[in-house]
């Protein structure tokens, strides 16, 4: 299969995945609609509340309580301990702590008695188990609360029965049920056995708490695995150790699409510690097994030494010959040659002709990589007709199904364990290391851990594409935004669709961003594999959009916060905000929580302005920049205050970051994530750039790809506006607004506009 066809298939899969993320995050995943709660087997006594999805219910009668594919969300033991199961991968976003808290809130559990365990990867039981698109919290929100509420209902009912009083006279708090009138009390542990004998309530009838009644959510909690982290206990994919386990490295062509012609396998097999070396033909799918050479050794060091000695002759007849230098030159040449517009609203030409001011600008941004700190890995063990895998993936649930297909195994012959992941940032939505480990394990009579080198992570990433925008905008003689014309020059694998991250986003450049708009797209062919990077597409497009809106406000002589508030409250195309009330604020129903909302947008802009001291007198040489962004259900605004010296060295004095993502589960975790997301965006904006020549990635390790360090990390003050909207996640929204705020601050300080990322291209350092 041609490389372009393989890439097109990968891109189509990723588009479908993100469309599914967004569609399903807008739906309420509950037990009432698609599944039912059930008592699971009682081991060691106590209450074990499990559930199964309705799709599987036909076979459920055959599953007696305690059958292995019933899984618990909640387990309450007679010793009063509460065990909750987290179904999403923990990649550093704090989901394991957050999911535990959401269940514990409705359960009215004593958090000090709660343990949270990673659920086994069983998508047929748990439903969606991935982490991506900032959808874990919105998708789990109702389901998890129902699980907690159902268990609480049963415990209270058990007490009511024992004391022969109506359940309505009982209250529950911190794992204790109390009958106020008689002063009787019982712990959850004491009630668990009796509760387990009661029928499970219909989840749809359970009343969930209002935000005002929360006793756990919204406070500051430490992570449930903190002690293990600080004492170096094994948690991550790379930490998996099995008896007799071997270590493998997989050597792939440095240019995507290359195949093995020949390799010095005999020589390699004689090296110390090497157990085997063999060629895998690959599966014609870049996200599965690319063609390559597997080295299997007794230790990681011996595998890496063998890799260094391996000589492969590659067949590159079907491989990428991409040159990003040439593509950038081509894009620049095409930027001002507009093709027929993809969308056209109003009359842009008349608006330009009658404008008070017209501004034209070209923005561009580089390709970047993920480089989470734990290199790709997975451990696979083929035994007893079963493929057992340990993986730090963001999508082990899809990995289970897809690896089963590759191996032609039924899914019940797959056992997948989710490990903690040392970062993800979107890279681990591709499961290539799972497939590779499984394919290698099929040929090795032992458990085998696949361990990539850092250099492999650089060469074999799925990158965030670079891009170019030629923008033209007008403000009327009244100082108001009247027209925007955009031409996005991006990249495509199939000639029709932009690769992820490229092209144009309707969040950053909406068709109704001005009364008159015209958007055009040009796509250049690209054979370098791309994929989702934190806040896909919007992560860079808000840089261009938010900077350009600032340019227009400057041209109009307007205050930018005033201009921005006018912009977020602009008349919007019909149908964008269904059910919008007279005050412009939609009712907080699930379907509207992820939609752009002018009131929420105004809220974050105003708070960022207030907290950063917008309008204050700054010392000479200092500048304050502000920017707004919306995406992945989150409304965010950042303000950056900085100085720039004569050598273009930037000192950031303070970053103010504001987010409205609905109610906050763990304020400590949310603050950490917002601060870290802003710094990730700062790192990408300042330094990060991947070069590709002759299809080969030019950077091999961190010395050629600097990432923000302690000395350059400015203070970030996080703020949240909480509301009764359903919660959004934070991993994606937190990175969206920083780059434009940074560029706008540099302009405020120096009068120089930055229109390229990373800023190191324009000579800036931090």
């Amino acid at each position, binding site marked *: 299969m041609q490389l372009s066809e393989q890439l097109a298939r990968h891109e189509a899969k990723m588009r479908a995945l993100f469309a599914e993320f967004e569609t399903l995050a807008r739906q309420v995943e509950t037990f009432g609609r698609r599944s039912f709660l059930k008592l699971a087997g009682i081991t060691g006594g106590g209450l074990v509340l499990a559930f199964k999805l309705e799709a599987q219910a036909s076979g459920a009668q055959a599953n007696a309580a305690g059958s292995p594919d019933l899984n618990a969300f909640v387990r309450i033991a007679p010793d009063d301990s509460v065990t909750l199961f987290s179904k999403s991968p923990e*990649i550093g976003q704090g989901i394991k702590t957050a999911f535990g808290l959401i269940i514990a809130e409705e359960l009215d559990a004593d958090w000090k008695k709660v343990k949270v365990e990673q659920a086994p990867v069983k998508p047929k039981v748990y439903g969606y188990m991935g982490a991506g698109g900032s959808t874990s919290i919105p998708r789990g929100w109702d389901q998890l609360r129902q699980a907690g509420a159902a268990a609480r209902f049963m415990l209270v009912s058990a007490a009511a029965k024992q004391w022969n009083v109506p359940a309505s006279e009982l209250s529950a708090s911190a794992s204790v049920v109390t009958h106020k009138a008689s002063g009787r009390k019982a712990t959850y542990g004491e009630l668990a056995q009796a509760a387990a004998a009661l029928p499970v309530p219909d989840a749809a009838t359970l009343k969930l708490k209002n935000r005002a009644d929360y006793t756990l959510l919204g406070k*500051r909690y430490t992570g449930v695995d903190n002690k293990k982290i600080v*004492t170096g206990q094994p948690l991550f994919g790379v930490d998996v150790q099995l008896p007799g386990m071997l270590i493998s490295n997989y050597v792939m062509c440095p240019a995507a699409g290359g195949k093995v012609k020949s390799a010095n396998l005999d020589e390699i097999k004689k090296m110390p510690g090497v157990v085997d070396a063999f060629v895998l033909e690959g599966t014609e799918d870049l996200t599965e097994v690319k063609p390559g050479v597997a080295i299997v050794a007794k230790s990681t060091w011996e595998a890496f030494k063998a890799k260094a000695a391996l000589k492969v002759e590659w067949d590159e007849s079907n491989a990428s010959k991409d040159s990003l230098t040439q593509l950038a030159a081509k894009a620049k040449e095409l930027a001002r040659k507009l093709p027929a517009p993809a969308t056209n609203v109003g009359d842009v030409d008349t608006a330009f002709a009658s404008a008070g001011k017209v501004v034209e600008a070209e923005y561009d941004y580089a390709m970047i990589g993920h480089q*989470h700190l734990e290199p790709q890995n997975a451990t696979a063990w083929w035994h007893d007709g079963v493929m057992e895998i340990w993986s730090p993936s963001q999508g082990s649930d899809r990995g289970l199904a897809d690896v089963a297909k590759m191996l032609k195994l039924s899914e019940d012959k797959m056992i997948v364990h989710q490990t*903690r992941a040392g970062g993800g940032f979107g890279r681990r939505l591709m499961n290539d290391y799972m497939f590779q480990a499984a394919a290698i394990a099929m040929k090795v009579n032992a458990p085998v851990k696949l361990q990539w080198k850092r250099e492999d992570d650089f060469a074999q990433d799925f990158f965030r594409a670079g891009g170019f925008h030629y923008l033209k905008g007008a403000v009327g003689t009244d100082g108001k935004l009247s027209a925007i014309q955009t031409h996005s020059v991006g990249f495509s694998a199939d000639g029709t669709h932009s690769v992820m991250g490229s092209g144009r986003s309707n969040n950053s450049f909406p068709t109704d961003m001005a009364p008159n708009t015209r958007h055009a797209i040009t796509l250049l062919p690209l054979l370098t594999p791309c994929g989702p990077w934190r806040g896909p597409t919007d992560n860079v497009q808000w840089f261009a959009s938010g900077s350009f809106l600032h340019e227009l406000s400057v041209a109009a002589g307007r205050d930018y916060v005033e201009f921005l508030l006018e912009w977020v409250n602009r008349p919007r195309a019909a149908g964008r905000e269904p059910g919008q009330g007279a005050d412009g604020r939609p009712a907080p129903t699930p379907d509207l929580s992820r939609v752009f909302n002018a009131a929420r947008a105004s809220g974050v802009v105003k708070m960022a302005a207030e907290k950063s001291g917008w309008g204050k007198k700054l010392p000479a040489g200092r500048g304050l920049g502000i920017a707004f962004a919306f995406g992945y259900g989150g409304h965010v605004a950042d303000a950056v205050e900085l100085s720039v010296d004569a050598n273009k060295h930037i000192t950031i004095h303070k970053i103010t970051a504001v987010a409205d993502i609905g109610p906050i589960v763990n304020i400590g975790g949310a603050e950490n994530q917002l601060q870290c997301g802003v710094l990730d965006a700062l790192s990408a904006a300042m330094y990060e750039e991947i070069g590709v020549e002759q299809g080969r990635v030019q950077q091999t*390790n961190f010395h050629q790809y600097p990432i923000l360090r302690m000395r350059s990390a400015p203070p970030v003050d996080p703020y949240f506006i909480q509301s009764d909207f359903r919660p959004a996640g934070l991993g994606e929204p937190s990175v969206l607004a920083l780059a434009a705020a940074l560029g706008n601050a540099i302009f405020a300080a120096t009068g120089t506009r930055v229109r390229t990322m990373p800023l190191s291209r324009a000579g800036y350092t931090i």
Partner: protein
Amino acid sequence: MAFLLNINRKATTVDVPADMPLLWVLRDVLNMKGSKYGCGIGICGSCTVLMDGRPVRSCTTPVSKATGKIVTIEGLAEEGELHPVQQAWIDLDVAQCGYCQGGQILGATALLKEHPKPTDEQIDEAMNGILCRCGAYKRIRAAIHQVAEPQTKAEGAIHAAE
């Protein structure tokens, strides 16, 4: 070849190639997974261990050169008692993904031994070599200051069960 190592206050003998980095001796031979592989060329700091109290990169330290007293993240707590730096890391909920934090904690421990009340500049100097890809630098800094001046301890967060 046989090498006699002193790891976490215990003498340990390993039979490995002389060029095997200490990191892989720890991880693959001794099954101590706390020291992490990040870059393999000594510039990310995830593999940091203490040798005679100084932070060293175990990924570029051949076992033959690992002749000092080595403390890994697994050995920082003595007799079940967490080191104050570890406790501060828990209390301030420093970690995001947590992968680099063993190296960060050991780097901070060495810094605090040399400068019990480090300035921000001294923290930058000592910690700049240890990359946190998630960017948890603000809390790393705050945790170091908290160990140095425990009386400034902020209102505690709620801890999970152990």
